């Protein structure tokens, strides 16, 4: 069981970062929206739309990448005997952290993965998003140093750890039963965007294949875009950070080669130029990811490994996406939504409340 796992070495995590960066950039070439080869927040938002949890017609599609992330991690965890069914570490808190993480991300228009890909595509607005993300994580590290924690999880029945993976399998089956019909916004019970980002996607088999590969590699390597900055700030340890930098550089080089690097602030794909709110949205998201112990991708991978609390966080994010679009909280390329500011403030206050009140008293 203690055999060497090369993916957790320095070169292992760099290799995984490079692969994710290259494939994310290619997904954009193969049909995914601009600078959105992989965006966990955007793709979960599209899934919420496809299920009709929100009715923003331009962002409705069951993203096979997300399905692949969870199932790839599930397969890897079983192959390498790392599947551990566990839950019970403040699930309701994690759920609400997921809700506000998603709302913050949708004010910026992207999760940390997409912030990196936007940067790699030349979108200058992502600089403010990245600064917000790092600031949010930095605030989170103060809580951690002061003894913040969400309590222990407990081992539970194996089947409990399967639930999100089975849910993802169910979504895949729904996609096969109700496939997209050209020019129609609905197929059976599923909504499909006919224009906008939700209409832009690589072929199902490509998206699913890359998703499975990324899920597998990320489970092995513990790849995490939040942990990268957290460990750097908290422990001055650059292990995960080197993987994230590898993703950024690999996506940047790939964009250069395929002619998709367009530096600037204006008219960037699925982005707005309201700098402060790009910063503040990502600050709330970064803080929420830090308090929940993982970026949105890592939460999916942990859920695949059997972590029921991470699965609850993912469901919180999908719910948050529904709120964001039903209540006018999400931004659009025109700028922030009518109630985006209120949502960012409430999200920030919620994170502070949790950070200040949930402390480890006794080991």
């Amino acid at each position, binding site marked *: 069981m203690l055999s060497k796992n090369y993916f957790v070495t320095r070169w292992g995590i760099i290799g995984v970062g490079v692969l994710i960066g290259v494939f994310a950039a290619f997904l954009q070439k193969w049909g995914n929206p601009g600078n959105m080869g992989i965006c966990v927040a955007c793709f979960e938002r599209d899934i919420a739309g496809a299920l009709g949890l929100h009715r923003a017609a331009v962002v409705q599609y069951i993203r096979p990448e997300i399905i692949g992330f969870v199932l790839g991690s599930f397969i890897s965890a079983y192959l390498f005997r790392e599947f551990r069914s566990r839950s019970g570490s403040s699930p309701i808190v994690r759920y609400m952290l997921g809700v506000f993480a998603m709302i913050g991300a949708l004010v910026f228009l992207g999760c940390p993965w997409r912030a990196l890909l936007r940067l790699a595509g030349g979108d200058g607005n992502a600089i403010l998003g990245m600064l917000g993300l790092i600031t949010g994580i930095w605030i989170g590290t103060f809580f951690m140093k002061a003894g913040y*924690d969400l309590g222990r999880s407990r081992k539970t029945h194996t089947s409990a750890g399967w639930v999100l993976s089975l849910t993802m399998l169910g979504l895949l089956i729904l996609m096969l039963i109700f496939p997209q019909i050209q020019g129609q916004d609905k197929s059976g019970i599923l909504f499909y965007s006919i224009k906008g980002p939700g209409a832009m996607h690589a072929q199902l088999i490509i998206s699913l294949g890359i998703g499975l590969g990324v899920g597998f590699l990320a489970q092995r390597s513990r790849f995490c875009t939040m942990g990268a900055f957290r*460990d750097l700030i*908290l422990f001055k340890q650059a292990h995960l950070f080197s993987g994230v930098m590898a993703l950024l550089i690999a996506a940047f080089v790939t964009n250069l080669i395929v002619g998709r690097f367009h530096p600037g602030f204006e008219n960037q794909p699925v982005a707005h130029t309201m700098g402060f709110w790009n910063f503040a949205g990502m600050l709330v998201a970064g803080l929420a990811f830090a308090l929940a112990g993982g970026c949105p991708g890592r939460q999916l991978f942990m859920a695949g490994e059997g972590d029921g609390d991470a699965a609850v966080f993912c469901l919180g994010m999908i719910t948050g996406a529904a709120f964001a679009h039903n209540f006018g909280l999400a931004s659009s390329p025109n700028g922030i939504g009518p109630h985006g500011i209120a949502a960012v403030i409430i999200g920030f206050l919620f994170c502070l409340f949790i950070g200040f009140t949930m402390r480890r008293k006794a080991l």
Partner: protein
Amino acid sequence: MGKTIDARGFSCPQPVLMTLDEISAIGRGEILVLVDAEAARENVVRAVASQGWQVTDIQSDDDDYRITISKE
């Protein structure tokens, strides 16, 4: 044998923080760290090495890891 840190059920970075807290509290000696996830084991081992401590033993029983760390 020094203090035992039971970090089972905690997700990262808690096991590392708990270990580093104890390391800075006692300075040198021996600590037994209990974790129940492979990722936690890796992170504790990595963090301990950066503090100049040594991992002297890792026992795996069932789903748990018993990591013994020490500094002369």
